[in-house]
């Protein structure tokens, strides 16, 4: 259920408008990407090629005046291709570190499931720990650091599906979906001359983004809401169709996302509505269905939605 987002906060609104000038439709994905950006989380975009995943990330990075890097994952990609490598400099007689694409501010990890687990994990380590280890040296990543990974759910041949433990590191998993016919027409119209991405100007600086991230983290979460989050998450562990439930990291992720979502709506406190709206995006990639549920055609989203119908919303002030 796409909710009406107010995006009342000036800078956030500008960011949203900027992205929308390139992306036709896709308000929800745009909003949620901003949520992940402000919550200091990362996004996994899962959809077929050609629906605008890369375009979204590029526009986003252009809108925020910061360094954009792109890694195209292939089966022969090595971890050092991601993190960077030390090269011997004969002039100085020293090894010099040449940073890889991971050391940007906004990183697009395209087709992440095409590379070997070894390379995947080097990316994921960076995402979680905010630093990478190269040749025994720990290198801090830049701030802000935002990864948008994409994967294609259709082609399985020659892919290495991300294990559950690594999916856990993405704050949100989003689907792009196809545009509606009208949107597609509009898109064609827009592209016919010059691609709009070339006209995109930055609307905020890195510093401003960090400032917004910090403010989003200050949004108040009532103990009532915290209990609600915990109830929802623990219900995934108890659900008869769940093989593996959501870890406590999921609870934290849900709360962080809810804070950012409340923030972009210019609210200084979280509503149950925020939690309820975000839960499918935050939780569904963190749980595994059991084989019966899979056989019945159930999806993780269905399971989360089922739980959201059942867990009671706190509607009274804690005394």
């Amino acid at each position: 259920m796409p909710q009406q987002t107010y995006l009342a906060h000036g800078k956030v609104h500008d960011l949203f408008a900027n992205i929308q000038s390139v992306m036709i439709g896709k308000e929800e994905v745009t909003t949620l990407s901003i949520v992940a950006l402000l919550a200091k989380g990362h996004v996994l975009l899962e959809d077929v090629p050609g629906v605008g995943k890369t375009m979204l990330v590029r526009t986003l990075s252009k809108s925020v005046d910061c360094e954009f890097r792109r890694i195209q994952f292939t089966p022969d990609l090595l971890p050092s291709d991601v993190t960077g490598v030390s090269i011997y400099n004969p002039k100085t007689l020293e090894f010099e570190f040449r940073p890889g694409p991971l050391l940007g501010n906004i990183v697009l990890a395209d087709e992440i499931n095409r590379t070997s687990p070894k390379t995947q994990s080097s990316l994921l380590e960076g995402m979680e720990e905010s630093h990478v280890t190269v040749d025994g040296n720990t290198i801090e990543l830049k701030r802000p650091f935002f990864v948008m990974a994409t994967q294609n759910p259709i082609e399985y041949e020659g892919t290495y599906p991300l294990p559950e433990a690594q999916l856990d590191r993405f704050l949100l998993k989003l689907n792009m979906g196809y545009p509606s016919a009208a949107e597609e027409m509009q898109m064609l119209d827009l592209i016919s001359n010059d691609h709009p991405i070339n006209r995109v100007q930055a609307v905020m600086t890195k510093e401003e983004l960090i400032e917004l991230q910090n403010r989003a983290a200050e949004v108040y979460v009532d103990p009532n809401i915290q209990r609600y989050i915990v109830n929802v998450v623990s219900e995934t562990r108890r659900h008869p169709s769940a093989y593996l439930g959501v870890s406590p990291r999921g609870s934290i992720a849900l709360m962080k996302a809810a804070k950012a979502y409340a923030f972009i709506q210019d609210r200084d406190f979280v509503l149950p509505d925020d939690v309820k709206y975000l839960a499918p995006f935050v939780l569904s990639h963190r749980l595994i269905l059991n084989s019966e549920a899979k056989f019945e055609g159930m999806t993780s989203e269905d399971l989360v939605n089922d739980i959201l119908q059942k867990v009671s919303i706190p509607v009274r002030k804690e005394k």
Partner: protein
Amino acid sequence: MANDPIERNQFLFRGIVYLCGFLLFWEWLRPLDQITDTANMAVFVVYAAFCFFLSFIHLPWFFTIPMKLIGLAFVLDGLFIGRRFLSGDWFRFVYDHIQYNIDVMVANQWWQMTPLFRSMLFLLLLWLMSYLLYYWFIVAKRTSFFVILTIVYVTVLDTFTVYEGKGAIIRTFLISLIVMGLSSFTKEMEKESIAIRGRRVYRAWVIPLMVVVLFASVIGYAAPKKAPQWPDPVPFIQGAVNGVGGSGGNAIQKVGYGTNDEQLGGSFVQDNTPVFQAVADGEHYWRIETKDVYTGKGWIRSSEGNPIEQPVANDINLGYFNDAVKREDKVATIAMNDNATFSKLVYPYGIEKVSNSEADTLVINPTTGEIIPQKNGESFQLNGYEIGYAQPSFSFSQLAESGTDDPPQIDQAYTQLPESLPEQVRDLAEEIVAESSNRYEKARAVEEYFQQNGFEYSTKNIPVPDEGEDYTSQFLFDTQVGYCDNFSTSMVVLLRSVGVPARWAKGFTGGEQIDTIEVDGELKNVYQITSGNAHSWVEVYFPDVGWVAFEPTKGFGNHTDFYIDDTEEDDEESSEVDENLQEQLEQNQEQTPEMDEQDMAGKTDESSGGGGSFTVPTWLWIVLVIVVLAILGLVYRYRYHLLAMYYRRKYIQNPGQHNYETAYEFLLKVLDKKEDLNRSSGQTLQEFAHSVDDHYRTQEMGQLTYHYERLVYQKDSSKHPWDKMSELWENLIKKTLS
């Protein structure tokens, strides 16, 4: 019932809860045989248990309703109907009863409803209660309301009636704790959607619950407790009422026969406890004693007279009538009730002989009229005896012609009046008898005086005279409302004021005829005399006739026999008198039937024992319960309207965070009751508000919710404009409740 262990457990739990409901309901029935005239309580309890059981096992209605009906018929048959069960005759009997009672009810003559019909209504009430409690306890799982009602009921009865609620309150508490513990347990389980499985739950819940309840009860029972912190409310309330009335203390007394009449006055409550049964030809005064000295407050005796001891076999001669009085020999049988304690005999006028094998001696006091049976020199109560008596009939002419030459001892003893008697009483007496030419006419004039002039019969709100106030003067001039003591004392005093010797007689009225039996080939009536029949009346002395009873109390008929003799028709004056008498006679006869249901009388002093008692006939009880249930039902039906009014006032008076919160929560509750609107637990307030606003086509719920969210989820919401929302709230609640 069910093989599934979960269901079996649930069934067991429900069974225990419902059983507790029945036990609580039993506490409602227990006091009835004490405070009402309901008998055979056990049968009603068994029927209630039967209904509860049938409600519980939840059979289809076409099975349970006939079962309950048959049960009802069976109970009625056992209690009232002697005919073959469910025969044609049986149905006709019941049908006639019902028809009669419906007529009676339509005519608003509730008191004439027959016991069978009243019992039937009562049984139906039990039936309904079994449903109601099933709903409360099992379906709605709301036990606390009934628990509180029960406790209130027991405490009120304990405080205001003779019912001793000590055991009841302990039982009620025990059962209440158990039932509330269990039902909150099942509620909790349902809320968390945990099935009750296996014995583990018992060990974890039920056993600790029982232990805690028992422990708490034992501690509560055994622990030292403070004395009541409040005074007994009954005297306090009465004091408050009297304070308003300003007429001094008038403790409520229980009606009945008592011996101490030094302080008359005060209200009393009705009591229909049977005292004795009499088999006689007609209604008589059942006389016990007389008193001669009026003190201004009540009656005492100048002397104890000269009792004569004589063997039972001897004839009794009280010497109340001259030989000229016509008499008729009759026999009456008295059977005292088990719980009555009377050392004195009750007897009709003209008593001549008492037949009883138990007593050997009778102590007869012609002055006071007391007859006390003795055995081996000790007085005791005769439980049954036969009285041979010559019932006197008085000729009007004889009475009219009777002279005024009273014997000195009579004149001296029976015209006494206290010096404090206000002059206005004497003046009134003179005024009343101004036109009477003879003593009989004087007596009749005074007797008549009370029938007119605005006197009213009542047992309620009767004051006790203040210090320095005369009992009769208060009645005659101030209140004009009273019962037999007021009327009879006033008549004696008025007669004495004009020099007519009179005395104050006490005993019982004729009672209620309950049966007719055949004794030695003659049909005789059986009368039931209850405490409520205790009475006082007036005896006037006529020199050539003797002591004649008069009945001044309004609404009561004189039991004395008068007749018109036709021997002196030639005398013009006397024939005129005769006509008057004829009229009066007719009046008397007209009055007689009235009194059966209204016999009221004297009183016993019970107020000193702390708290009056009070008895309500069963029909009134049933009507009361129905009315109370109806009111409760209405309150329940309109509870949201009432609550809405309450919250509205509260919120408008004090528009703050807290009151906004309660008002909004109330709104949620009301909306929840709407079938098409109720909020599922997983629905957020915004989603809910959206659906409500869609339904009513408004924006109000959304706005209210917007503010409420800030209250619940925001860190600091104190600076919110809470006072702005009352109108929104009011509009919405009106729409919801309409």
